[in-house]
């Protein structure tokens, strides 16, 4: 191995996106939702679809389909201390890898990746595997999420309600 950071060898847009995605993953594992909220652009959309193939989220039933308003409500719910499932949420640890640059035009970068997450609650480890798609705008005020889509590999099966975000 050389001294080189492998990221430095990647092209610049992808490297910047990976750094952003890892930062986001750490915020979610730490349940730092206030900081996570800052990553979003005002018209950013956060989706956890059920239908593995759909791109038309608006006319499908999703697990999560949040615009800014719903995202703010969700963060409030997870943070306010009134939700029994959020108060007793599972601890999580996630790694994100297998990045693939889908698109890089102007200051917008779209990247897919694989996320492996373990949730732990009351003696039970629950794995959750998903493909992520991040669309990030690298603008003046810093990088902002325009869209994040989380496609769970078991989205059409039953999941457990564990009180954290993907």
């Amino acid at each position: 191995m050389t001294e080189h950071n492998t990221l430095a060898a990647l092209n610049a847009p992808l490297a910047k996106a990976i750094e952003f995605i890892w930062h986001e993953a750490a915020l979610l594992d730490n349940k730092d939702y206030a900081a996570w909220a800052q990553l979003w652009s005002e018209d950013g959309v956060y989706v956890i679809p059920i239908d593995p193939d759909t791109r038309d989220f608006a006319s499908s039933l999703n697990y999560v389909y949040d615009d800014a308003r719903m995202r703010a409500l969700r963060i409030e719910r997870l943070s306010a201390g009134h939700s029994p499932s959020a108060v007793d949420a599972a601890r999580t640890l996630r790694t994100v890898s297998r990045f693939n640059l889908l698109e890089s035009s102007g200051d917008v970068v779209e990247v897919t990746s694989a996320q492996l997450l373990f949730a732990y609650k009351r003696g039970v480890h629950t794995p959750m595997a998903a493909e992520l798609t991040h669309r990030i705008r690298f603008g003046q005020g810093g990088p902002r999420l325009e869209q994040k889509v989380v496609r769970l590999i078991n989205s059409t099966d039953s999941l457990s309600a564990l009180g954290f975000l993907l």
Partner: protein
Amino acid sequence: MSSHELGLIAKSPSLDQLVQDDRVDVSLYHDPQLYEQELEKIFYRTWVWVGHESEVRNPGDFRTTTIGRRPVIVVRDKKGAINVLENRCRHRGATVCEKHKGNATGFTCPYHSWSYALDGKLRALPYPDGYEDILDKSELPLNSLRVDSYAGMIFASFNDEVEPLTDFLGGAKHWMDLFMKQGAGYPIKTQGEHKFTFNGNWKIQLENTTDGYHFPIVHKSFMSSVDEETSEMLSFMTDPQAVTHALGNGHSVMVMVPEHVDLEFDDGSEQLQERFAHVTEELSKTMEPAQVRRIVRSLHGAGFNLNLFPNVAMSMSFFRVLNPLSVKQTEIRHVALGMDGGPEIANRERLRIHEHFQGPFGFGSPDDAEAWERVQRGAEAGPQVPILVNRGLNREVLADNGDKVSHATDETGMREAYAMWKRMMSND
């Protein structure tokens, strides 16, 4: 040890001891033997909800599900009849279909390719010479269950001698008809579903759909996330018109929004909710004001939860379906509903409302699941401490039609379900 004590140990408690008018024994949540009997005496014997007609609209449309542990296929055949078939090959037992839903011309077993028609008939098998004179295809169809439906709700039973569905539903049918009025003149269709499992007995969920008492507590975070009009609409805790009726055969209905019990009735006094202004505006471009009001007033669904024993509830704007996986684990499906052929903007609004509360990432279901799992864990504490279902016994009255009625926060619906449970479990 005295013989008296031995007698106590050897004899398991009677059903009368397990289920009393005002309490049930905790073993109902965690005794594996009781669970096995429940499968035999309840799930494999009575009418169990298996789907909605809109899910199998066309010939060949199917969906798979399980009743207890037994896998079944709900399928519409070429003649338009709905069949519920055991998903089990008559050769050596493989499931013949593993898709959740789809459209098929028949079902072919993956193991040795016996193939079955949509009505279950065994059509063909390969290399038939080994069966000459010893196998009659007409004797080996996929086993079919009794099927009947009411108001688009499909029920099936493993029991050939089951009472007619119409008798089983009894007083609930009136409420099923009322529930379907949220279609605003359009037929109801399903619009996808959320599925999640929780670590607890199925009856904990059965109780919950008729538990108005928990709503402002467990769902405090949901309530603070909705607009004032919606939270007002759901504030039934002290509303004397919010009542629960026991409907017989284990069924019950809990009215939470009295003015939305019959959505066809509109005296015009209700302000349409501000949160739906974009829907109202869009619909008003092409529709009469009365129809716009009908659709917008129906967006939250009917003003009640109708609990049908043992496995489905018609709950405001969705179906809640429970499926016991084991004595301590239950799968819940929340099926979203819409207007078949109705305006897209209103159907989408219904999806957003569903996503807001339901599912493993909703603002409501995870908190319910947390409470239910805590019940399961706490109920392990000891056999001497019963589960209380006595709330409202002090104010339960008999209505003119014979329904037991109390407040929506009372436990009349649970008492009705447990009375039916005891009745069915007492049968041989």
